């Protein structure tokens, strides 16, 4: 399997993704799935800035990502798929058996959310959405960096 990590992180591409996970996984491509960023060249420029030249960055809408997931999965290079919210990754898992694990890497505080872990804040609806993913056989854990303990879903949602 070429995609080493399916990550939910509202900072999208940042240090933990590029360095924290990218180095040990020897990542060579990152897919950022976000409809807003996909439509904005200036946002794409921002997210490209911190990525070394040897890592390709692919910007995809949710629909594009759903269509191209098999292609990325067949890529011989290791890759990461990152989205900013649970709903996006949930949409990618619909009718798709390729996503076995989801990494909750960072969901920050907003009105309506409560703190579940230092780096995970969820509304009740978001917690329920994660539980629905788990009920479909997807392993959901929270882990900001690879050296941290992967926290099982039952401990935070």
């Amino acid at each position, binding site marked *: 399997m070429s995609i080493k990590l399916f990550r939910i992180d*509202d900072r999208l591409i940042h240090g933990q993704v590029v360095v924290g996970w990218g180095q040990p996984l020897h990542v060579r491509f990152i897919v950022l799935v976000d409809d807003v960023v996909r439509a904005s060249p200036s946002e794409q420029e921002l997210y490209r800035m911190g*990525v070394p030249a040897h890592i390709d960055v692919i910007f995809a809408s949710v629909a594009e990502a759903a269509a191209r997931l098999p292609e990325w999965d067949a890529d011989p290079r290791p890759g990461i798929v990152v989205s900013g919210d649970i709903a996006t990754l949930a949409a990618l898992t619909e009718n798709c058996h390729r996503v076995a694990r989801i990494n909750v890497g960072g969901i*920050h505080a907003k009105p309506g959310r409560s703190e579940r872990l230092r780096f995970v804040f969820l509304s009740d609806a978001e917690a329920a959405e994660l539980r629905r993913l788990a009920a479909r056989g997807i392993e959901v854990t929270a882990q900001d960096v690879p050296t941290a303990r992967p926290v099982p879903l039952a401990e935070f949602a």
Partner: protein
Amino acid sequence: MSEPLRGVIVSHAAVAAALIAAVESITGVGDAFVPVSNDGCDREALFQTLAAAVGEHPAVLFVDLPGGSCLTGAVAYARGRPGLAVVTGVNLAMLLDFVFHRELAPLAAAQRAAAAGSRAIRTPAA
């Protein structure tokens, strides 16, 4: 005399606060910089923190890494604000230079600080 530039250091964890403490211990100047940490911040929260740190002042935003959430937030915030300039790879040498050249325009001060910071990176013989 116009208002001196403000320096806003945007960093992971407590790097910004530590750099400001070092600048003050060396120069005795304690009001040139404001620290901003990205701890617990998504883009929106970082924007709010930056807005509070910058206020209505002309400023240079010193960012720790040339990529990542601190930079994306700082660059996005500075867009369309001509009174702001951004420098990445913040180090103590560039901050010490900036302290004494805060009368410059933001972009000129940022470029000068970047040059000073670059000059400080060496591999001296042991």
